[in-house]
């Protein structure tokens, strides 16, 4: 894994979660800026997936390959799914779904880093 890309995803998703949390506290439904923000986070995740796939092809896969790819895929779908589920709810609870979806991302990235750093035998 490339540290710069990992940190970009972690920082972006945490910032997005904090931003959405402010909207929850202020009783705001999910609006257009949050869709754009989710798009930015998703773009970074997409870059991370491409980088990880290239690295796996070039340098070999980590020991727990299946788990790693599972996390990679889950990270890829969690934000779009959250957005889809959030937008149908025009209240603060819709926005709260975005907070949860965004908080899953850094957890998955950290788990992926652990698996990656454990390396291959």
């Amino acid at each position, binding site marked *: 894994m490339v540290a710069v890309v990992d940190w970009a995803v972690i920082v972006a998703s945490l910032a997005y979660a904090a931003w959405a949390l402010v909207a929850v506290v202020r009783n705001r439904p999910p609006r257009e800026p949050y869709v754009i923000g989710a798009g930015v986070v998703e773009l970074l995740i997409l870059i991370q997936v491409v980088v990880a796939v290239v690295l796996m092809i070039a340098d070999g896969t980590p020991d727990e390959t*299946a*788990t790693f790819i*599972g*996390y990679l*895929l*889950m990270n890829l*779908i*969690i934000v779009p*799914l*959250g957005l889809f*589920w*959030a937008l149908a*709810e025009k*209240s603060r*609870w*819709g926005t*709260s*779904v975005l907070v*949860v*979806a965004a908080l*899953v991302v850094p957890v998955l990235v950290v788990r992926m880093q652990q698996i990656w750093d454990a390396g291959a035998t």
Partner: protein
Amino acid sequence: MSAATRRSSGPGRLLIAVYAVFALAASARAAVQIATKFDEAPVAYLLSAFAAVVYIVATVALARPGVAARRVALTAVTVELVGVLTVGTVTAFDPGDFPDDTVWSLYGRGYGFVPLVLPILGLLWLRRTRDSEDAGR
């Protein structure tokens, strides 16, 4: 707002989202465990798969309107609570039977104890949304 949609709106929206995360996580975990190392701990991995099914059923049933879906949700969430309490207690006292982690091991400690809190919130939410659905039947 109609009674039928109430369960998946408001706080229910968030509850179902968290359920969906666990349905996804538990399914992926069980699939990997069973596909790559089933022989190491078949009991734990079958339990992982069972937990995954419970989360999937609970997510779908909570999200769907109607009295039948409510009954399914109630059953699934109750099974979930019994599951996390049973597996949590067994693993706390005798980890020997569970050589590898499941979502419910040690009351879901590996997942920030969310697996323990989730079924309680689920039951409370089902109770709170019950009256409106009975009236709308």
